[in-house]
């Protein structure tokens, strides 16, 4: 019966109609809510092995007094290191507080009212969200055979199209464009729009036909590549990601980039990742490959349709509402991602994890299916 106050009239119309994303509650709250004593998080595609040993050491060695000093505002050392590794210039990289932040940098840099971006209908939602709450039209092209439809994306371009977002590999279907497809797409765009290739899961792809997009930037100055330290490199809790592009593109994006948004510890841990010898990546790939095999064999036995592509996740089609499956699995201490929000009703996405978590998931799934 309290007096309510509304500020709706102050918000732009495109903000008024936008619904805020509500993230999951913390684990302790979820356990209390669902009455479970443990919680296996198979919902966010995190790496269950944690960061590589050198990054772990950096985190352990963090000196508390450093917390009172501002971090490098533009991730200086990280950009130097990436430039050295990819044969590019430091000014071709921009860091953000997770790759989500760099999505906003790019849209703000290139789009104004009346412009549009193009992406797929069933992909990572943040491209669409950032566009829409910025008042920019997001054109969604239906997936074709669960993959981005290059022909239809090209057909959807008009003179107000500024950016095309391609999630490669696609979250959540795991499909990807090989080097030839990406090159063909870039040729057809012919530099008229910015092409963003989000490679959040690229470290999981072992097929040699996966594009070396960093190398393509020289040839295609309109190509912008997103990478993150949250998935394979297991620094999700520190929030750090970056984009790479031609100097001409990055010079414009830098104007909308928030500096000082990446903290000192995140920068130090990411620097350790960049210096890592690659063993940790290989261990993770081995784990994911093994667990995918175990899970998909189980799913075949259960007669459940699934999609197991690239990335550390598998999508499963259930004969019930995905949100019901979520609740029933949560009551057994297993947290998965529902796919209704990705426009895949009744599908769930499961992160590959350590055997005890995968066993708990399969046991839980079996119990809700019978």
């Amino acid at each position, binding site marked *: 019966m309290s007096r309510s*106050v509304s500020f709706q009239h102050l918000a732009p119309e495109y903000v008024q109609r936008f619904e805020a994303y509500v993230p999951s509650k913390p684990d302790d709250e979820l356990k209390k809510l669902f*009455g479970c004593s443990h919680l296996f998080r198979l919902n966010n595609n995190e790496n269950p092995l944690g960061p590589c040993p050198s990054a772990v050491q950096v985190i352990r060695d963090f000196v508390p007094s450093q917390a009172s000093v501002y971090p490098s505002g533009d991730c200086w050392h990280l950009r130097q290191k990436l430039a050295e590794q990819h044969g590019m210039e430091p000014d071709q990289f921009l860091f953000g507080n997770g790759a989500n932040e760099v999505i906003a940098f790019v849209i703000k840099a290139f789009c104004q009212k009346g412009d549009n971006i193009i992406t797929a209908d069933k992909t990572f939602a943040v491209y669409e969200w950032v566009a829409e709450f910025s008042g920019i039209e997001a054109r969604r092209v239906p997936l074709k055979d669960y993959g981005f439809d290059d022909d239809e994306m090209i057909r959807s371009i008009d003179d107000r199209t500024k950016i095309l977002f391609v999630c490669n590999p696609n979250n959540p279907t795991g499909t990807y464009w090989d080097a030839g497809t990406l090159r063909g797409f870039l040729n057809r765009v012919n530099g008229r729009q910015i092409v963003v290739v989000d490679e959040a899961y690229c470290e999981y792809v072992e097929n040699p036909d996966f594009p070396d997009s960093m190398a393509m930037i020289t040839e295609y100055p309109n190509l912008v590549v997103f990478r993150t330290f949250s998935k394979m490199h297991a620094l999700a809790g520190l929030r750090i990601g970056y984009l790479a592009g031609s100097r001409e593109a990055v010079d414009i994006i830098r104007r909308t980039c928030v500096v000082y948004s990446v903290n000192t510890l995140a920068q130090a841990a990411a620097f350790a990742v960049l210096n890592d010898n690659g063993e940790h990546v290989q261990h993770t790939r081995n784990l994911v490959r093994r667990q995918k095999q175990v899970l998909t064999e189980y799913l075949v036995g259960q007669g459940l349709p699934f999609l197991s592509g690239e990335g550390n996740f598998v999508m499963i089609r259930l004969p019930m509402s995905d949100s*019901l499956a979520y609740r029933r699995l949560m*009551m057994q201490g297993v947290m998965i*991602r529902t796919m209704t929000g990705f*426009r895949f009703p009744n599908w769930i996405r499961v992160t590959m994890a350590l055997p005890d978590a995968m066993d708990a998931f399969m046991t839980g799934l079996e119990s809700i299916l019978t």
Partner: protein
Amino acid sequence: MPVNKLSEIASIPLQQTAIRIPADDRFLPVVMAFVEQSSLVLGLKKTEALRMTLATEELLLHLCGGIIPCEHQIRIRCINKGYFIQTDFSFPGTGFNMQAFNLTATPGTQDPSDFDDMRLILASRSVDRLKIRRNGNQLRISLIKEKKYPRASELAKPLFPFAGNDFAIRCPSADELKFMAPLTRAFYPELSLPVFFQYPGMLVDMMQSGEYHALIAAGPAGEIGGGMLWHSLSDRTIEAIGPYVFGDSGSDRIAGSLIEACISEAGRTSAIAMICHPPATGQYHEYFEFLGDMDQCSAGGALIRQSSWFRLMHEDMGSVAWAPAEFEAYLRQTYSRLFLPREIRMVTDDGEAQPAHSVLSTQIDRPGSRVDLDILWPGADMEDNLQRHLQLFRKEGLRNVVFEIDVGSAWKSAAIPCLLRNGFQPVQILPYAGEGDIILFQSFPCTP
């Protein structure tokens, strides 16, 4: 199966007129002229516009008859909602006796049984729906009069019904919607269908208003194999209507595709839950969870059983549900059956003071012979007030009385024992439909 954008069909711009007057009955002629002319310009026929004007007269006489202080302003707004005209009366809900906003209020008479002096109920008789709502500090009374549409003639099942698996899910054109309405009636019992399927023009206007959305399964030659509609019941709840499938060939696949497309369209909206009343047995149990059945009487006296199903559109973050002791077992059992994580907190009467008079919010749907009640304000006279309302509804011949309690609100849940004592029974839970879950209580028997 590409899905077109829903907004493509919404083409009627919002049209409205508004005036602001002091709460003084000397302005009655001004307001009546304003409402009548606005109703006509916005699309009502002469007869309907006059009925809206009559309702306005009763309502304004009620409001200005010593209830709202003269220094208060009343804002009157007529809105074209496509298939109906809504006239809203909004004013600050402070500085006077709220009791006057009970439908049963009889200012000016000492005889509580004198229903003829109840101007709110008199107003409700002239329109299709009357709603009393509170939004923060503002009270709003809405009069709703639907436009008149010709009833469609019966349509026999098509000679060449939809056959085959080659179809696309897309938004229908206006002509396709008009064709779909009688097609639906040809394949489904009339009593199981919403009334708007009898009026194709109304169906088109509902879509064009942007309030309703539709998808059809269309074959390569434009054949219609099925259709599904949906609209927002509130910011957090969508109601899906259908799917309706026209023919046996590939019916499961068509129904599944329509449901999936509908859910996908709503998947990134603000809706937390989708409620569905599917027309027949089918595969919707794959997509929805059973909530329960509700028996209702049509205005003609026929018994209609409506099954309700739901699905959450997002991962459940849990919520609090308030329960008086006598209702705790029902809530626990229901939440357990539906696997809904809820923290149940007990509502207790610890002797704290409460206002003398309660106020009930009423929504009357005369064509559906239904009243929906909610609590606007708690009060010590809740039981008497409720009984008086029930007496009035019986006199008005309204067959279905549903009381909604938002158990996310402790003071609303506190009214549950009163409902139970007066013949109401819980029949359905609507997850996240209010501040928390809404429990629908139905008054039995539903025949007058």
